[in-house]
């Protein structure tokens, strides 16, 4: 049985300039921040980032790693607006594809299903259709002949997620109330890497949660990083809450000052 244990540095060594990277979690919750930190330390650039965005997006923008962001929102939750993402959008330094949260899920699901689009109502009538000229609509071939958005698949080169527990084979477990869309991110990606709070023996996976908490199976993951506190300062329920103080510091300190300090934390 393959042992998929690896390190943040080895994961980032697999990434290339210009890749499309999907990042799991939601807002400022269960983000793979230790892997994001390693990207910040690297020479990588021109990434397209697909995310239910939080400080992952903000930091990558602040560090000049981003060419384009695909998002429905970018927020720090307790601090609604993400300062570095805002700065990047307002300076015009990044490209953007802004879609409804459900459209984003549909794009990941279409990629995971290996089809080119999935139809949905979300987006119709809104400005989303105007600022994304690549979005097309499709007419139902059935009697209703409704016009629907053909949300294009969002295939990823790499997915990065953070779980509560995992085993060395690559099975992953979430123990909090929401697994978000981490499974879809993995299935939409050519390769998926999962950090986790703790690697446990496979036989111990059910000691802390039911079968239903085994969100990621080993077919979905290519590398496992044991990273205690790896989601900080975002939350990782039930292991820890968001570090609101550190998040506030991040949001209110110029990146030139906060960034170097952040890179030294591990």
């Amino acid at each position: 049985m393959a042992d998929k244990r690896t390190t943040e540095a080895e994961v980032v060594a697999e990434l290339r300039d210009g890749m499309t990277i999907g990042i799991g979690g939601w807002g400022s919750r269960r983000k793979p921040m230790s892997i994001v930190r390693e990207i910040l330390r690297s020479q990588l650039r021109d990434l397209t980032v697909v995310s239910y965005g939080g400080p992952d997006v903000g930091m990558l923008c602040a560090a000049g790693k981003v060419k384009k962001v695909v998002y429905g929102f970018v927020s720090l939750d307790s601090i609604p607006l993400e300062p570095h993402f805002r700065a990047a959008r307002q300076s015009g330094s990044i490209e953007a594809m802004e879609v409804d949260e459900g459209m984003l899920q549909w794009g990941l699901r279409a990629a995971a299903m290996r089809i080119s689009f999935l139809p949905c109502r979300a987006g119709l009538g809104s400005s989303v259709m105007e600022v994304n000229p690549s979005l097309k609509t499709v007419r139902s071939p059935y009697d209703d002949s409704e016009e629907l958005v053909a949300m294009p698949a969002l295939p990823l080169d790499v997915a990065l997620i953070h779980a509560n527990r995992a085993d060395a084979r690559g099975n992953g477990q979430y123990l909090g109330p929401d697994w978000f869309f981490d499974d879809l991110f993995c299935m939409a990606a050519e390769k998926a890497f999962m950090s986790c709070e703790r690697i446990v023996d496979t036989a111990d996976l059910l000691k802390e949660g039911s079968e239903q908490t085994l969100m990621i199976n080993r077919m979905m993951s290519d590398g496992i990083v044991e990273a205690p506190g790896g989601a900080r300062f975002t939350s990782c329920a039930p292991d820890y809450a968001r570090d609101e103080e550190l998040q506030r510091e991040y949001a209110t300190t110029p990146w030139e000052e906060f960034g170097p300090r952040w890179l030294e934390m591990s």
Partner: protein
Amino acid sequence: MSANGSPTRAEVCAIACAEAWRGDGEIVASPIGTVPTIGARLAALTFEPDLVLTDGDALMTAEPLPVGAPADAPRVVEGWLPFGKMFDLLWWGRRHVMMGATQVDRFGNQNIACIGPWQKPKAMLLGVRGAPGNTVNHTTSYWVPNHSPRAFVENVDFVSGVGYDRVPASAAVHEIRVVVSNLGVFDFDTPDHSMRVRSVHPGVTADEVQEATGFPLTANGDVAETRVPTDEELRLIRDVIDPSSMRDAEVKS
């Protein structure tokens, strides 16, 4: 809270928000913001007992929690609604959301995405979030705690939530039920679905509301006054739902 115990503006706003869910029955109420959350929980405790509430996170709670309750506060959980299930549910239509609106226009288009041109915004906001999908799948209302001509605009800079003049033919449903602000309650029950005043809050005049609005509100005869909370509703707001007076941070007295 007023010294004499009479209702504050925030408490009137909470009632106005609660009224938005009247008649909705067994659907999930998704309030965004403190006062809408008080409103939804008040509705569930009084005239709309079948409403389904959440803890603001992934759990459905059988009993309304106080607003601002810590994550480990005891709660009776009756269901599970992580984001993936919430998306399923909103496409199913069993939901009435009350979102914020940085801008709302006379036909109920809402903007939470950005101010200025989207390509290079003057101010980037949240992004569209779920507003495009919400507004073509289930009932939506809005809450604006600072009524001003900058919030109530002739045309929004970016249509996040879809208004009455842009409803797509294939919308499952489309209903912008009310816009509640710190000055009054507004709806679109007019021949052309343009915004009118449904009621002004006690102490507010129709002229004040028009002056604070960036487009002409459609005439509505004699404007009613928003109802004030009953003694029991005031008790529920003050002692049960919002004992730490978080509402006063959102609406100044």
